[in-house]
């Protein structure tokens, strides 16, 4: 399972990005994107913004679950009160053989299962808390990139904890 996480500002401008892999089921936390199509991750995330803008006005929840999918890439979204979008692209590792019943219990093996949704929700909730702390900085203006290494550590820790 590989993840690509990005925070997109109100003008659809990228503010933060982080790539990681699963730490559950003995994962090493490294992403396993195919090198040849890895650069497409950014396109896939940004192309899902149109869908997000439709869904975000249909319900007031911040966590919008999986909003878009592109082949084996699933995009989950979280919209903050300030209209900043957290987008998480998750790509389940394709099983080498025919799928067995054991592999389907892993978080993320089935991207739309309730367990995965819950894990991603917890991840977003923790990132949101840190995001608010970042923007409460009096020197932070809307749509500025977040470059704090502490913030990056916190996001990485949330990824290790839940995904």
């Amino acid at each position, binding site marked *: 399972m590989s993840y690509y996480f*990005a925070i997109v500002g*109100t003008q659809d401008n*990228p503010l*933060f*990005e*982080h*790539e990681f892999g699963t730490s559950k089921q003995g994962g090493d936390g490294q992403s396993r994107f195919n090198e040849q199509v890895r*650069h497409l991750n*950014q396109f896939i995330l940004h192309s899902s913004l149109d869908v997000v803008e439709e869904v*975000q*006005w249909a*319900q*007031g*929840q*911040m966590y919008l679950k999986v909003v878009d999918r592109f082949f084996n890439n699933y995009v989950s979204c979280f*919209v*903050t*009160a*300030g*209209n900043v979008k957290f987008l998480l692209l998750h790509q389940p590792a394709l099983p080498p053989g025919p799928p067995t019943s054991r592999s389907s219990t892993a978080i993320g093996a089935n991207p739309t299962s309730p367990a995965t949704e819950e894990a991603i929700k917890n991840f977003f909730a923790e990132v*949101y*808390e*840190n*995001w*608010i*702390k*970042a*923007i*409460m*900085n009096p020197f932070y*203006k*809307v749509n500025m*990139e977040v*470059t*704090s*290494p*502490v*913030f*990056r*550590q*916190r996001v990485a820790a949330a990824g290790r904890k839940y995904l």
Partner: protein
Amino acid sequence: MSNLSSSKGPGQEQSGLRLPSSGKTIYHRPLNRTRTAELSQASFAYLFGEMVSYAQRRVKGVNELEQRLNAQGHPLGLKLLDLLLFREPPRSQLRPLTIIALLHFIKQMLWTHLFGRQADRLEKSANPETPDEYMIVDNEPLVNQYISVPREMSQLNCAAFVAGIVEGACDGAGFPARVSAHTIRSPTNEEADLWPGRTVFLVKFRPEVLEREKYVKQ
């Protein structure tokens, strides 16, 4: 996007960032605070007086001064929107989707957080030609309590700062608006004597907000 991408690895942690000696950054501090954590009004009044005189430097008129006060408040509104919704219990952590929901949030949550009480009234413009205008009424704005406006600047209302906060909250929630503060006497005589500083915050939403409102309501 790639140029802000991370150079991953442990080397990045040794950047030029300097931590306080305690090792605690803003990320270590909790976002929730106790209900009783109030600030001294005297120190606020002093600070606000300084903010007004700072904004007053090199301005040409009352309009420009109010604009500057508005700009000072704007980022506060943007940040409070996220902070106050985060402090809500998870079930009611809902983004405001309609104008009414947003204005209720401002009247109740935002006002209570800033001034310890709700705003006094919420009104929709009765004029059919301006359906995009809403009014938040505060009988006695806290920021104006120790402000005396000189006679030659009688148009000035320093609650333009609060208007900026409201405008920031509206903009952040995706309801772009212009908000201005006006001193308007109450229509009834008794109340007019009771609340001489009655201030009306005029919220004028952009046309696209009203257009979307029609679709969202369905």
